[in-house]
């Protein structure tokens, strides 16, 4: 057996595979909940009351988590597409994955600051 049979076996590909699944399931579960909370928009007062909860700091942290999950899943998905369509990319697996992690952090840390800003200002 060659040391690295496919992009999905062994570190770091195995971690990427696992994280892709976990973030995918988390985003899917949030989507199911989100369809229900948006459907309350038919009752304006009820919608506004329920929706106000999203401004709470606990849910802001949750939104930051959603951002990280979404962006990682999206960028790692691009990496998977790259490996699928350009098999040679497997050789750069480690570098590609580093790029995915670096871009995720570069996009999400400023995003997290924006989402949490009202809390830092003491508004929520």
């Amino acid at each position, binding site marked *: 057996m060659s040391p690295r049979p496919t992009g999905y076996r062994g570190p770091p590909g195995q971690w990427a595979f696992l994280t892709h699944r976990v973030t995918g399931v988390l985003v899917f579960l949030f989507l199911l909940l989100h*369809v229900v909370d*948006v*459907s309350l*928009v038919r009752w304006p007062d009820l*919608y506004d009351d329920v929706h106000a909860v999203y*401004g709470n700091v606990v849910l802001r942290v949750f939104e930051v988590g959603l951002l990280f999950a979404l962006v990682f899943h*999206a960028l790692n998905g691009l990496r*998977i597409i790259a490996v699928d369509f350009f098999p040679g990319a497997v050789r750069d697996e480690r570098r590609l994955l580093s790029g995915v992690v670096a871009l995720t952090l570069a996009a999400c840390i400023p*995003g997290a600051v924006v989402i949490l800003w009202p809390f830092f200002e003491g508004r929520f």
Partner: protein
Amino acid sequence: MAGDIQPTASRQPSGKNPRRGRSFETWSWLFMRVSGLVLLFLALLHFAITHIINDVVTTDHAFVARRWDNPGWRLFDWALLALALLHGLNGVRWIVDDYVRRPAARKATLWLVGGVTAALFAWGTFTIVAF
């Protein structure tokens, strides 16, 4: 034969005609790539609008009413709903195929997830169309 390499259970979902199964799984694989690319733009733009450009507390009923005044945004949100649910459902199907090994339990799990997803797709579509 015992020495033959058997296909993994994960890509033989329900023990149907393997030739038909393979073709379906090929389309399923392609769908995940194409819908994933589209969702990258739809989902990240949606998140940017509702959490980064606008603060989440300002996206109240009036905000939704203003946005859905434009049929383009309704179409955008419906496309996001449909593609995200289908992409998520197919992803969960792969995971269930990998980890739920007993055929009856696998079938029941898939029907449950599929049923919930279909119901929420109908519910979400009604929300967008009937607003």
